């Protein structure tokens, strides 16, 4: 005999508008073993919580059912409530009548009927629940930051300043990320390098930060508090311990590669540093363009290196770091605009994408900061085309958020550096942000021509060879325009990194429709992910500007700290276990587990589960053909009982 209390939440009108909540509570009171049933406007509020605790004592409840929102939302809250009233926290059952019920119907009859069925199932299940004890584990105090852009740098610095040891992994040969490619930042127009390079240097100098450039995460094992992460150090062919950054090698090198840093606008050497302020300021050899690797002889760099740092035999190496928490800040790619043939990128030399233009403005860029076209001439008229691939059902539905503002920045810089006419082709100007609207107004006064209409096509001019024509509809005057220009700048959609899917798989992150990493909750847990102990910051979560990215980096650092400052942490008791008598040795559990918790005992011919690794997802229990695996808190008996209760309706 159980003594069950049922607490029905209205959630304001969220639930009450499509479920007759008082009827549901009355119904609950009629069910066997239910000794008290109540409804209340906000069960999660203090009066609601107190009501539950009072009833537990008064009615000597040994099971509590809360019919409210998703357990993801408030299971923890209510577990604490009943624990404080002296009940084991696992004797709580949440029935989700909001996300899975009231929000997906308009019909109050249907809603109430389904709520009754769900509640009946929960009562059946609650009877079979058993008290469980949470596990306590040791926590590793170190943190891994993946991605050395501004988000990763900021998060690493914040953590390191608290005394936390940080591993910062960056796949390029320098940290800095996209921000290091920019010249100015909107809306204040302060110089990107002036605000970023001191931070890059601080990372290099910080005794608590171990910087791992030219490296990638290849394997993630473990769980919150105790991750084992394998990092691949790609072969640099230069021993960075010996190299004294004299860069004599880069002068002599005859190899020619395309400079990724300058977005392919110029060539670079085969042994190179991406840009003069790179951190670390030590070169790497690009195998693809190195004469020695292509033809088998050259080694000029080796001859000029007094430090004997060049090592053509160097191999990639793998190392493992142990950390308690991870921050993923891997940034973005620009959408490849070549498939959008109507804009002529890659076809007409006068068409650029925005990152190329950032490099043109940059004093450390290919033109030394002068705005010239690929033929060396200064453009006399320039068109900026917003929303290329963004806000476009055919490509990316999302708004890339920063394009309006950086287009204004571009327009300002074009006006400053050239005498060109500047046209903005936009759908809407989105200038929400501190000082952004003011910046927009300033640009209107700077005689930039704003045309409300998305650039539809770029063609070459028949009358004036070499010039381009931008076609668009001006939606304010309903006129079709053909604007002749010398230079077209496309503002492509910001998209997830090409390899973000692999990373998502490594860290078990969910991705949204566009492929950006999913936060646990868009409002209340924007930096946490569904994987406990893994946090996200910056554009890898969604397009955003530098201020927001930096704010998120601070936040992610704080989130990571909440885990690693403690020596011990409590983990859910809802793990799986194997009944060896029923195990048939098929090893399905070993194969499906994303956390490598089950292993096969070859001598006994049965599977065993390492509870420290188990997250209680239940995959193993569901593929076990002989029901040998018992998922605690979701045992077969409990689930079958719940189904029996559901099917009575």
């Amino acid at each position: 005999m159980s003594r069950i209390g049922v607490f029905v939440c209205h959630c304001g009108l969220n639930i009450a508008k499509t479920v007759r909540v008082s009827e549901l509570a009355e119904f609950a009171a009629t069910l066997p073993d239910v000794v008290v049933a109540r409804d209340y406007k906000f069960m999660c509020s203090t009066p609601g919580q107190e009501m539950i605790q009072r009833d537990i004592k008064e009615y000597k409840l040994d099971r509590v059912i809360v019919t409210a929102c998703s357990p993801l939302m408030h299971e923890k809250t209510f577990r604490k409530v009943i624990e404080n009233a002296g009940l084991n926290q696992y004797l709580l059952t949440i029935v989700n009548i909001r996300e899975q019920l009231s929000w997906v119907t308009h019909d109050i009859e249907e809603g109430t009927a389904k709520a009754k069925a769900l509640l009946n199932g929960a009562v059946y299940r609650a009877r079979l629940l058993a008290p469980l004890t949470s596990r306590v584990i040791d926590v590793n105090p170190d943190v891994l930051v993946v991605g050395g852009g501004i988000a990763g740098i900021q998060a690493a610095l914040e953590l390191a300043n608290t005394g936390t040891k940080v591993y910062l992994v960056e796949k390029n040969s320098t940290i800095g990320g996209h921000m290091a490619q920019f010249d100015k930042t909107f809306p204040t127009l302060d110089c990107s390098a002036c605000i970023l390079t001191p931070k890059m240097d601080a990372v290099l100098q910080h005794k608590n930060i171990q910087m791992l450039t030219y490296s990638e995460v290849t394997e993630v094992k473990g769980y919150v508090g105790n991750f084992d992460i394998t990092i691949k150090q790609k072969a640099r062919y230069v021993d960075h311990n010996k190299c004294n950054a004299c860069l004599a090698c880069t002068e002599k090198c005859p190899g020619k590669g395309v400079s990724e840093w300058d977005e392919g606008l110029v060539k670079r050497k085969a042994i190179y540093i991406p840009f003069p302020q790179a951190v670390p300021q030590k070169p790497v050899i690009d195998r693809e363009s190195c004469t020695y690797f292509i033809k088998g002889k050259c080694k000029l760099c080796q001859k000029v290196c007094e430090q004997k740092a060049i090592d053509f035999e160097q191999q990639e190496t793998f190392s493992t770091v142990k950390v308690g928490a991870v921050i993923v800040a891997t940034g973005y790619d620009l959408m490849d605009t070549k498939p959008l043939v109507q804009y002529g990128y890659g076809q007409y030399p006068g068409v650029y994408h925005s990152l190329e233009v950032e490099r043109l403005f940059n004093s450390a860029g290919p033109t030394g900061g002068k705005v010239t076209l690929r033929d060396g001439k200064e453009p006399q008229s320039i068109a900026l085309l917003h929303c290329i691939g963004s806000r476009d059902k055919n490509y990316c539905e999302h708004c890339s958020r920063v394009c309006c503002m950086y287009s204004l920045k571009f327009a300002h810089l074009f006006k400053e550096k050239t005498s060109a006419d500047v046209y903005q082709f936009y759908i809407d100007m989105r200038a929400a942000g501190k000082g952004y609207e003011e910046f927009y107004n300033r640009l209107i006064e700077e005689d930039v021509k704003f045309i409300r209409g998305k650039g539809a096509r770029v063609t070459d001019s028949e009358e004036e060879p070499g010039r381009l024509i931008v076609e668009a509809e001006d939606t304010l005057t309903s006129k079709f325009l053909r604007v002749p220009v010398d230079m077209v700048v496309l503002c492509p959609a910001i998209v997830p990194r090409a390899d973000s899917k692999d990373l998502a798989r490594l860290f078990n992150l969910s991705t949204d429709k566009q492929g950006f990493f999913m936060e646990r909750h868009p409002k209340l847990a924007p930096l946490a992910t569904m994987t406990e102990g893994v946090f996200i910051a910056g554009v890898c979560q969604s397009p955003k500007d530098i201020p927001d990215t930096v704010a998120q980096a601070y936040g992610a650092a704080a989130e990571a700290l909440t885990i690693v400052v403690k020596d011990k942490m409590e983990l859910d008791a809802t793990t799986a276990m194997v009944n060896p008598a029923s195990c048939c040795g098929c090893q399905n559990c070993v194969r499906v587990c994303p956390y490598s918790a089950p292993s096969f005992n070859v001598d006994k011919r049965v599977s065993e589960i390492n509870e420290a690794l188990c997250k209680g997802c239940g995959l193993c229990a569901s593929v076990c053909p002989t029901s040998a695996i018992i998922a605690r808190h979701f045992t077969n008996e409990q689930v079958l009982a719940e189904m029996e209760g559901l099917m009575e309706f």
Partner: protein
Amino acid sequence: MTDFKKIEENLKKEAKRLLESGEVTVVLAYGKGFDEKHPMPFAAKSVADVDNIVFNEYCNYNMARYLVRYPQGTKIAIAVKAADSRAVIQLIQEEKIKKENLVLLGIPVIGMKNPKTDEVIDSKTTCGMHNPVLYDVLLGEEVHGQKIVSPYDVLAEYEAMDKDARWQFWKDQFDKCIRCYACRKACPMCYCDPCFIDQNKPKWADKAPQSPGNIMYHLTRFHHLAGRCIDCGECSRACPVDIPLYLFHKKVAKECEEMFNQVSGMSIEDKPVLVNFRVEDSDKILE
């Protein structure tokens, strides 16, 4: 046509050699039954046993069924026809047996017969292959030049039925079931001990040979064999009440092949398809 006598001779010769040299401790093959039409599964453990070995067109048992009964590490030689070799491969994939402990005596054969009906077994009730996929010794000449028939052609009539008709079809078939579990016994992939249907906690289904329990037993067994059944057809031949179990297995195999582009038991490098995640896997199953 296959020279059965020649294969029998070769089988005996190989069995003798392997047992004599001590290379294996047991040879799984076929032995004399009460008449020619009813040979029996046979395990030869000594040279003296070899005389009992036979091979004829009625030797359709899938001897892979018996592999998992021996302790790990036992050196076993096994006579395998096409589908039997696929069962061996599937068991290797599932790590129930190791290739290094096995000697596969491959039998390419055409014209095997069902002793009950004397019909030739072809792609209708098996995978329709003639040559073993994996073998160490070949006991006859490979069969070539046969018309290649898809093992799924037989599904045409079944697939033409709508949902309700299919449900009715299986309900009628399962009503016949007497729960002798011969299908489970004959199946090389049914190695679970205990089988879910024998469990009492939780009791997944009624154990009496009545409709709801029968349906639960067969549907769950089908589900457990999805992506694993190698289409030897032994379950259907073992069935005393002639339930065409092969139809369901073939249908699932077809779906599986279309969805994941993998056929069970074709390569020891493959991973069991339903418990293996590949990034390139189709998401169709979620739709």
